């Protein structure tokens, strides 16, 4: 798809709005985690990924794994916006009898490649897919979106070691580096720095960028792999809760359910900021 930067920005605004609504409606949480990665999801689904909503299992497609499974509301909304399902089913999010679970579930709707929710699983699955696709579908790429807290998991680094060893240049890992993990700031809970160097040491080619800058995201995603023979790591510096000032950089928005007033105020601010 060829959209202008402003069109992408408006799409991301609408995805934020809808994500906020379904989370509030379901009395759920993880707004901050969703908002920090919505620009990345928008760039992927409306610019980068080779996918066909009319034919979700198209064998030549790119694969996307949402390893940070708690950002599921943003993924469901993005998929609905991209035409993988009717937006009507979003109103069922995590309600009784719904298939839309509160962590990424492969059977919830077409277009979801892998079930996640426990951190540290997605990159390994991505390595397996990338290994299979190298032989069977060489044009296809595997994108894996990780949270920064997820980089605490040993299994993430087991996967990284193997991706580097096998030289999987069809694998692109993206870290949503909002600097806040579940129960506090990364720097205080379990400091990851020097994070880019860690990935480089595992033989990834690393690009650091502003994960809310569509121009930067699209430029990076248009030049993949960053280096042939090596997996790519996009270290996306982001802001937890990005888009609504009272949610930004506050770990409590990992847990809060927005009130109806907060939803109204939030949407109002989204329209002012992303006019």
């Amino acid at each position, binding site marked *: 798809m060829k959209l202008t930067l402003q069109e992408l920005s408006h799409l991301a605004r609408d995805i934020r709005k809808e994500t906020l609504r379904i989370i509030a409606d379901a009395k759920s949480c993880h707004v901050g985690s969703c908002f920090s990665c919505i620009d990345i999801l928008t760039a992927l689904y409306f610019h980068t990924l080779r996918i066909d909503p009319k034919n979700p299992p198209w064998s030549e497609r790119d694969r996307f794994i949402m390893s940070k499974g708690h950002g599921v509301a943003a993924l469901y909304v993005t998929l609905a916006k991209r035409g993988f399902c009717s937006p009507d089913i979003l109103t069922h999010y995590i309600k009784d009898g719904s298939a839309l679970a509160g962590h990424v579930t492969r059977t919830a709707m077409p277009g979801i490649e892998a079930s*996640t929710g426990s951190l540290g*699983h997605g990159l*390994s*699955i991505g390595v*397996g897919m990338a290994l299979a696709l190298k*032989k*069977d579908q060489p044009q296809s790429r595997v994108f894996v979106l990780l949270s920064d807290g997820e980089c605490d998991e040993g*299994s993430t680094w*087991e996967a990284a070691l*193997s991706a580097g060893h096998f030289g999987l240049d069809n694998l692109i890992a993206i870290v949503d580096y909002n600097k806040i993990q579940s129960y506090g700031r990364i720097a205080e809970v379990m400091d990851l720095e020097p994070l880019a160097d860690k990935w480089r040491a595992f033989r990834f080619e690393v690009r650091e960028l502003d994960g809310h800058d569509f121009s930067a995201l699209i430029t990076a995603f248009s030049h993949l792999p960053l280096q042939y023979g090596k997996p790519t790591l996009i270290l996306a510096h982001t802001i937890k809760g990005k888009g609504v000032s009272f949610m930004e950089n506050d770990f409590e928005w990992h847990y809060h359910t927005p009130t109806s007033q907060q939803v109204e105020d939030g949407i109002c601010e989204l329209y002012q900021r992303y006019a």
Partner: protein
Amino acid sequence: MRNAFVKTLTELVHEDPHIMVITGDLGFNVFDEFKVQYPDRYLNIGVSEANMIGVAAGLALEGKIVYVYSIIPFATMRCFEQIRNDLCYQNLNVNIVGVGGGYSYSYFGATHHAIEDISIMRTLPRMTVICPGDPWETSEAVRAVANLPGPTYLRLGKRGEPTVHKPGTVFTVGKGIIIEEGTDVTLIATSTMLEGASQTVQLLKAKGVSPMLVSIHTIKPLDVKLLRDIAQRLPAIVTLEEHSIFGGLGSAVAEVLAESPFHPRFKRIGVLDSFPDTIGTQIYLRGKHGLNPEQICEKVLELIGIRNKEYGIVGDD
């Protein structure tokens, strides 16, 4: 069993282009030829079992039929959550081949013993649990699971276990096999205890007892129909497993018996709730739990004797 496993696997890989094999850096004397013969179907993922299961899931999501291989505690416990979420929840055709059932890795010590694996694998929804008792059951199981859509756990021994079954026997996942009919007591064995059960049958016969011998190679799904039939026909049942008496074959059979209208005398023979405080051969370690044929024979006679003397219900040891 290991030889039967790799021989059958080699045949399968030759027949089906979708099959992939991953090892967690183990398989000396197992994959030596295989990895040279089929380098593009073989992956050594290193000593990283969690990653091994995740990678297997990714391959399976792309249509591969995957066999992963390691020593049992590493293949089942280290990566239990990956097995649950990545394989069972997503219902993928990944077959976990664990080597070293029970005390197969005897003097290596408790880190390498496999005495809780059946029970933990059995709790997982969609998981098929198969514990072959001889090389023939191993070959049949390795072949059968390629065509099962969901995940399977295959528990192998390590020694050169002898073939117990007669030619012409039919193997079906989920169906027990009556190896020998009898009228006094049924010995139900699984995995590495099939050989010992077969030897016990001979000891019992020498004492004038008519034992029935059944192999339950599939612990899940369990052959409930056969077990109920046996419970109705025979006055006593003994389960034999080189595994904890908690949660394995004995527990699974007990669950069926407790809910059936038939209540034969029943005894679980297996590993008691302990780690070994001294080490030795597999025979030595089995002996600590009464798992050698002479010991089993005594326990069976005791169970039948108690019934004959009508002592009533007697507590387990």
